[in-house]
């Protein structure tokens, strides 16, 4: 049992980490492009999943519902850019953060007004049970849904990477991320880019929402996955996509290890703060996060 169990904890942890990273990804995209710490990401995850299920309930087939929801999220993203961010441009980081929290309330309210407060389940056709063959061969239990989620996350990240690397939009994005002023000066439509990024973040939220929803139901509690993403973010650095992936894996594995092997000594439940303690440790070593850009402070 010993080693098997260890492997189970490790792999399980890593896979949970992927789930965290999925949420953190949305934060990074927006922060990178517009310097906004978008606390509403959690609400967006909830809203996206809820809308998707809602449309299915209205009788839309899976793919149609998916497309429509993507449409919704894109609209939401653009609306946010137009009505929240654009008027607040050049405001301090905190002000922007606070605005996104206000946005959180709005999204939560709209979601519950439009779709009601009922709890729904989301079936992606993959059962959340251990991979049979793995269980038979090694006795190690790994949920196939988690594996599926990991694969999806991988594809998502790969697509984004491609988007950034190969397309003009991507190049523009990177330019914006590097230096807003410069980007403007070479004629990149900043506002359009921001809207685009918010739209992409919305889609990322949808993916995260669907996977989380399939795992633990589509319901208000999905809002709180944002909290799981925060330590991941500071370890990975607000501006680094590979950063959050790695950090997600680290946090996932570490927190499970801690909860299973150390937790019992303190009566358990240390998962609530352990990732943050871990994050602080990382920060003390690298204040700008694992992959974040080094902060150079000239005199």
């Amino acid at each position, binding site marked *: 049992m010993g080693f098997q169990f260890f492997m189970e904890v490790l792999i399980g942890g890593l896979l949970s980490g992927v789930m965290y990273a999925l949420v953190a990804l949305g934060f990074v995209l927006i922060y990178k492009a517009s310097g906004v*710490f978008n606390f509403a990401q959690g609400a967006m995850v909830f809203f996206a999943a809820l809308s998707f299920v809602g449309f299915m309930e209205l009788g839309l087939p899976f793919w149609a519902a998916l497309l429509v929801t993507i449409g919704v999220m894109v609209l939401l993203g653009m609306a946010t850019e137009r*009505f*929240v961010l654009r*008027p*607040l441009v050049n*405001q*301090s*980081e*905190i*002000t922007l*953060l*606070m*605005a996104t*929290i*206000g*946005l*959180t*309330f*709005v*999204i*939560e*309210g*709209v979601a*519950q*007004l439009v779709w*009601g*407060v009922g709890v729904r389940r989301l079936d992606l056709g993959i059962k959340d049970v251990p991979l049979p063959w793995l269980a038979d061969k090694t006795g190690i239990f790994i949920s196939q849904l988690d594996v599926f989620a990991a694969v999806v996350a991988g594809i998502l990240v790969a697509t984004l990477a491609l988007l950034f690397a190969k397309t003009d939009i991507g190049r523009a994005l990177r330019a914006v991320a590097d230096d807003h002023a410069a980007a403007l000066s070479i004629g990149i439509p900043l506002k359009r880019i921001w809207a685009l990024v918010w739209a992409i973040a919305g889609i990322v939220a949808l993916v995260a929402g669907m996977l989380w929803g399939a795992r633990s139901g589509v319901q208000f509690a999905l809002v709180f996955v944002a*909290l799981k993403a*925060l*330590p991941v*973010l*500071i370890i990975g650095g*607000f501006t680094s996509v590979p950063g959050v992936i790695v950090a997600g894996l680290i946090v996932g594995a570490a927190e499970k290890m801690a909860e299973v092997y150390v937790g019992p000594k*303190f*009566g358990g*439940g*240390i998962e*609530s*703060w352990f990732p*943050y*303690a871990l*994050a*602080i440790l990382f*920060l*003390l070593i690298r*204040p*700008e*996060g694992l992959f974040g850009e080094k902060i150079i*402070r000239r*005199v």
Partner: protein
Amino acid sequence: MFYREAGQFRTSYAQDTQIFPLRQDRLAMMALLAAAFIAVPLFASDYWLRALLIPWLIFSLVALGQNILTGYAGQLSLGSAGFMAVGAFACYNFMLRVDGMPFLVALVLSGLCAAAVGMAFGLPSLRIRGLYLAVATLAAQFFIVWALDKFAWFKNNDPSGVITAQPMKILGYSFASPQAKYILVLAIVAGLALLAKNMARGATGRSWMAVRDMDVAAEVMGLPLMRTKLQAFAISSFYCGVGGALFAFAYLGTVEPSAFTIDLSFRILFMIIIGGVGTILGSFLGAAFILLLPILLSVLFHAVFGKIVDASVTSSVELIVFGSLIIVFLIVEPHGLARLWQVTKERLRLWPFPH
């Protein structure tokens, strides 16, 4: 027309540095205090005292603490609810375990406990800044609540894992009636607010703001960054701690650790952003906005739509309106209510002559 500084000259630095250089302001402040201490207890209904004014004062105090740290010293922190919890549980235990412990002493001690904890969790601020620090301080938030929840000793092994505040007695008089509670809280808050104002306008405040605005320059001028930052954390946490103790003793009565959630921390940060970063007044205005606006909305909606519309709808709409108002407000006046007030005053000075 009467709001003028004409004929009021400052002949000494002391006069120049007083809180209200204008006589009119001084009079207004006195009137306000008189009203708060005498008129309100006499005429305000129990509902106003027990449900609105007492919590408002308490949260103003906490917001003040947050403002010292974030507004003046520029350290973005999300641990305030945690520090409140420390204060609440410390006060309970002092009252419980030291017999004959005077309430006010317990209050101060609990503030000191919070200050100590605050300093400990402020240490990362020496190396981490901005949003990174904010998220890092969440560690305080979660760890404190976890610890208080986990170890039964803090709750005197209460099987339900809650503490029940002891009656507040000062010199034999027990502050039990809403009026008495209100006056006690008001006195404490007013006193601490004055101290905060003194620090803010004195050398202490200058070093905080220096660290906030340009820490390298501050250091080059010989300011000890570490001491200044930790001092800010300590004082801020002291205010939060006292606020937390009052929250438990003068407001909720019976509390469980999980009453001090991260959501509360966010709301407190909200209060200072909406109210005005780096202003004493802003803390009070912001607390009013964040605390009372949702209540106002729900009262309004129930009054208007009452039983006619499904309450689920009104509740959701309340949420939407609240969120939108926050966004709109941040757009219209990103410097907070305090700035708004200042501007109106400036206008008043020149009125009726437009500048």
